[in-house]
């Protein structure tokens, strides 16, 4: 595995991030110097950067208390934020190089990060680069590729400074002007944080929308859902989806009723039609999800290739680290899909809707993934239901009737509205797949 050394640029020189550790949730996040019991002055700011509701890290990684050990004092400012966020993502991918690890890449970062992960300009880039000259030379001597990640508006200054320091032909450096933290993660080939989508403006618009008649507080919002899926038993008619008893999982891939198959396919048979799979990851006994995210513990993963009917077994949210489902198009032709979700309590109150995908194409052989992580903290059981609306063969997403039917999602305020929407969609050229699941605290 190619490890990445992450350094935070300071005006005194680079502060290398030695490790990131998930601490007890009661602890305020701290930045410490080299493993010592020395909490650096930026610790309070780092805690605010981590912890909900102000922070980014907890929203991205699902844990609210971390300790970072760095090799050098960081006394103030906010330009450490980019390096810290990237280091969290790199650590999440188990690729953060510790002090004794050989790194294939050295990332030098400076930038302020806002809640939408946009990176803002910083000062003193030239000074910070000059103060890092010795570290750069050491990396070059070891053949380590060096990436300089700075805000877009600081990129020209950084390039010019490096030319001045190492000459116009100096190799081994790559300067990346980043607009968002995602830009640098992509360059490093590190997956975006699992829950990053909750932060982006687009994702924010997708959050479960409160039902009109029940304005009661229901924060915490993450969407929730169901794991899910699949679909032999799903029905053309929205109201006709049969419900199987809890635990009716099938080990075989299932196909949609638009195909010739009328029941679960043979496990050895090539899948056809629209096939869904669900993956659930739980923290092992005695451990937490943070330990899983940071590879301190190995998650207990369950995978379902298909579910025979629309109702899935209830799940406890405690220790549930990740839940997702994947819809794969084995039909041999392009399909378009809308994925909507609703959530309510077990008495049918607190109705919420959420849009996950709006008319997205699933090319033949391709998949669509839905992050279905349920709310992390529940006070009472909730029921979540998903509907995947998949165009029937020959139906285009621009079809007038279908388009009008799906647009009515904005007018769904009650379960009756929801049922009506799905019924109209099923009459207008899309197959409706529904599945429901209860989550308990």
């Amino acid at each position: 595995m190619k490890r990445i050394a992450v350094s935070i640029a300071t005006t005194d020189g680079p502060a290398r991030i030695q490790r990131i550790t998930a601490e007890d949730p009661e602890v305020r996040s701290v930045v410490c110097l080299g493993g010592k019991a020395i909490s650096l002055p930026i610790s309070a700011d780092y805690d605010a950067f981590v912890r909900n509701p102000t922070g980014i890290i907890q929203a991205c990684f699902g844990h609210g208390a971390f300790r970072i050990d760095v090799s050098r004092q960081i006394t103030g400012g906010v330009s450490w934020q980019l390096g810290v966020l990237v280091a969290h993502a790199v650590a999440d991918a188990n690729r953060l190089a510790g002090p004794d690890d050989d790194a294939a890449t050295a990332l030098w970062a400076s930038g302020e990060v806002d809640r939408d992960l946009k990176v803002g300009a910083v000062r003193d880039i030239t000074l910070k680069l000059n103060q890092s000259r010795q570290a750069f030379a050491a990396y070059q001597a070891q053949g380590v590729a060096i990436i300089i990640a700075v805000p877009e508006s600081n990129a020209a200054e950084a390039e010019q400074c490096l030319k001045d320091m190492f000459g116009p032909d100096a190799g081994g450096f790559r300067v990346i002007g980043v607009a968002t933290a995602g830009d640098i993660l992509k360059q490093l080939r590190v997956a975006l944080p699992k829950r990053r989508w909750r932060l982006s403006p687009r994702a924010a618009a997708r959050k479960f929308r409160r039902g009109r008649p029940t304005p009661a507080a229901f924060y915490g919002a993450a969407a929730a859902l169901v794991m899910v899926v699949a679909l032999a038993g799903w029905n053309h008619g929205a109201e006709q989806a049969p419900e199987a008893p809890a635990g009716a999982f099938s080990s075989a891939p299932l196909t949609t009723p638009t195909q010739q198959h009328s029941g679960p396919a043979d496990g050895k048979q090539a899948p056809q039609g629209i096939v869904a799979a669900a993956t659930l990851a739980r923290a092992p006994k005695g451990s937490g999800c943070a330990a899983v995210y940071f590879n301190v513990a190995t998650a207990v993963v369950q995978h379902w290739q298909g579910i025979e009917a629309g109702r899935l077994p209830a799940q406890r949210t405690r220790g549930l680290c990740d839940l997702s489902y994947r819809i794969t198009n084995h039909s041999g032709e392009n399909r378009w899909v809308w994925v909507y979700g609703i959530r309510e309590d077990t008495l049918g109150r607190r109705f919420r809707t959420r849009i996950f995908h709006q008319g997205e194409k699933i090319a033949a052989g391709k998949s669509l993934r839905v992050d279905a992580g349920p709310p992390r903290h529940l006070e009472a059981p909730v029921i979540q239901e998903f509907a995947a609306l998949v165009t029937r063969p020959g139906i285009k997403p621009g079809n007038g009737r279908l388009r009008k039917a799906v647009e009515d999602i904005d007018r769904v305020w009650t379960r009756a509205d929801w049922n009506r929407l799905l019924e109209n969609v099923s009459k207008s050229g899309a197959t409706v797949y529904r599945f429901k699941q209860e989550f308990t605290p």
Partner: protein
Amino acid sequence: MRESQAAPPPGQPFAEAVFVALEGINALSARPGDEAQRQSIGFKDIYRFATEADQRMSPELCQALQSNGRLRADLRHLLERTTLFHLSARAAASGGTITTRHGEGFRMTLRESRAERGQIYVIIRFGDTVMPPPTMLFMIDDDSGFRKLPLPAPSAGAVQLLLEADSDIVAALRDPRTEVFMR
């Protein structure tokens, strides 16, 4: 007339006024053997120690507190009068160490660092955010006497310290017989 016996000026804090008076009483009732030490370590010293964050425990003050029961009582009385938060001493119920202690308006929790097992987070969470946050923590126990620890600024209603697990301070905080004051 000694300065300590003078009437407190207008606006002088009540606690200081009380100890001006105490100082006078102590001076009148002091035994001859105490006099030399009393002259070098007086009310002003323990008052400074109790109220000024940068006033450390000098060897002289430490020695005076160890040898002079009345001075110890004075300092304890001063702390009781001037501190915002107090954690009473409790009898040790068992041989195990404690991780959480509850005082009036605050809770003190000790958590081991998962990164460094030899380090402890001391988290002091305050219930009343209206009160001015304390800046000093005092510990009194029978074995080590008085100790003082400056507190960092609180963040989100909590003060957090990171200490070595084998330090005397952590041992004292874990001991339910240790009395804690914060001001």
